């Protein structure tokens, strides 16, 4: 049985301008210990998807349909109190901006103790401190820095602290929402390296939400490409890079700058991301798609299975 089975999840935002279909009919599976990269451009609903799993979609957003089966239980049936026990303990999240995701008035150790105490009230403070310092050392932060306030740490260190917070209770699933976007390239590489080694060590499942395909290649087993609130392709990482099936994936891969092709111009995908209040009919990518056929504008593209693990939603293959 999969650790996480999301089926037909719909999260809509009821704004004054209209209904924003941020996550529209998304289905995904994630096995234990597997790492999934959820890739898409800004505003395609990938962060909302991550927050939906934790049931933390901010108003006016609401999850209006579907199922999120986590370890055999539907998270959408849980009470708020039960969810609170799952957040941080079994599913945890790493946020995009480490500069603002730590409470400025709490010391680093207070963050960690607070978290341990919330979920395991029987732990003594000393025990919690010991666990915290052990993990921090592993993450490359000298334990004496635990007495510092967040503003005394650099961005990379803060992100390590965030990772420590996400990992200290040994969760089954970690959702990392653009964990390296706010960091510079060198720190980015360090953090990725760290996440990679931690993933191997702790055997946790990982959902890596990002717009950066080059990060995903390093870290994940499986890639899901999201476009305008819908999944357009799911593939294992290797075959995805060898042969992207969906025209959007193809466009994404082609728009990565590469050293060998430095003399060429970057190929961008023409057009703009669609407005999620009034998405295009049929396949949402058809106005920008080089292979568009008349049917693409009329009907939703079918789910096409290619081989064992690959799924693509496109008329080209169906």
């Amino acid at each position, binding site marked *: 049985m999969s650790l996480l089975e999301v089926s037909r999840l719909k999260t809509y935002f009821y704004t004054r301008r209209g209904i924003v279909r941020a996550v529209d009919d998304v289905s995904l599976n994630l096995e234990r210990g597997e790492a999934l990269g959820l890739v898409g451009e800004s505003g395609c609903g990938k962060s909302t998807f991550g927050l939906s799993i934790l049931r933390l979609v901010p108003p006016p957003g609401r999850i209006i349909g579907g199922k999120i089966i986590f370890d055999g239980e539907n998270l959408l049936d849980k009470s708020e109190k039960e969810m609170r026990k799952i957040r*941080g*303990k079994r599913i945890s999240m790493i946020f995009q901006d480490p500069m603002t995701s730590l409470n400025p008035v709490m010391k680093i150790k207070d963050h960690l103790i607070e978290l341990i105490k919330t979920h395991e009230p029987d732990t003594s403070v000393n025990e919690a401190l010991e666990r915290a310092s052990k993990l921090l050392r592993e993450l490359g932060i000298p334990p004496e820095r635990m007495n510092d306030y967040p*503003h005394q740490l650099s961005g990379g260190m803060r992100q390590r602290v965030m990772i420590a*917070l996400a990992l200290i209770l040994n969760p089954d699933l970690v959702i990392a929402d653009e964990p390296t976007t706010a960091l510079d390239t060198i720190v980015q590489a360090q953090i990725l390296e760290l996440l990679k080694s931690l993933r191997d060590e702790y055997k946790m499942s990982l959902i890596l939400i990002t717009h950066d395909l080059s990060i995903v290649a390093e870290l994940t087993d499986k890639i899901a490409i999201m476009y305008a609130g819908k999944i357009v392709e799911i593939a294992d990482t290797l075959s995805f890079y060898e042969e992207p099936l969906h025209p959007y994936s193809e466009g994404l891969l082609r728009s990565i700058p590469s050293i060998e092709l430095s003399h060429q111009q970057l190929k961008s995908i023409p057009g703009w991301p669609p407005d999620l209040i009034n998405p295009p009919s049929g396949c949402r990518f058809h106005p920008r798609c080089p292979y568009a056929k008349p049917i693409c504008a009329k009907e939703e593209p079918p789910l096409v299975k290619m081989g064992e693990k690959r799924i693509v939603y496109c008329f080209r293959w169906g």
Partner: protein
Amino acid sequence: MNAKPDDRKPLNYFKGAILQSFSKLGFLSSLKGGVEGYMMITGISILIFFLAIAVLAPYISPYDPNAMVGDPFLPPNPKHIMGTNQLGQDVFSRFVWGSRTSLLVAGLSTVIAFIIGVPLGLISGFIGGKLDRTLSMIMDAIYAFPGLILAIAVATMLGPGVLNVAISLAVVYAPTYFRVIRNQTLSVREQLYVEAAKALGAGRMTIMGYYIFPNVIPSVVVISSLCIADAILTAAGLSFIGVGISPEIPDWGYDVSNGQRFLTYRAWWIITFPGLGILLTVIGFSLLGESLDEILNPKLRER
């Protein structure tokens, strides 16, 4: 920055907040360089001076403030350095004891206003929705009244007495705390660290107590020192009108109101010294408040 391990009290978080603002803004350098450093030092000195007088009143005052200790209307002289009033009471002794009343009333009213305004503002801002709307409307309605008139109304209703005056002042100032805290809470609750805390399973009370409260409280420090200054004036106003503290308790406001009748006899000393007392305390608190404002809230500087 090297506090003892394992002290997870909100007080420490508050300390954290202050320390953070200090280190962010280069507190020490601003003390040396800017005007606000001098403002703060002056304000604190004035306040310490009056606080010392108030605390040491029994030792400083040469006479019983309510006893007739000399001829009436004596101008300042070596025996009565601030003269005597129309009843032959020593003005200096009344000045010294009066500082107690003023500071007590102002302090008490601030504490009560804080206790009412801050939790309500926190809850209102955090929970939002209908509760927030209702509370905000009530508080705005109170806020719309001119402060002194509202205080007179409440004080008349409650009758004289130190506590009653403090309560009537608290009614006037609670909405200020409420509004400041509510608005700050609204902005802090959208911060990523609050969301991160939620994502790590923190409950509502934890979020309010450890994540929001310590982050909104620095602005209250500023507000309260400004409100205290205002409260001293209003309290004096209440005593002046005669709905404040009963005459047997020495009070600057009452003395000023009482002494103005004798200004025509050129007995300037009866009202000048208590009036000076009010003026200086208010200036002291205002200086402290404004300088704290400058140091803690750089965003408010452009006001």
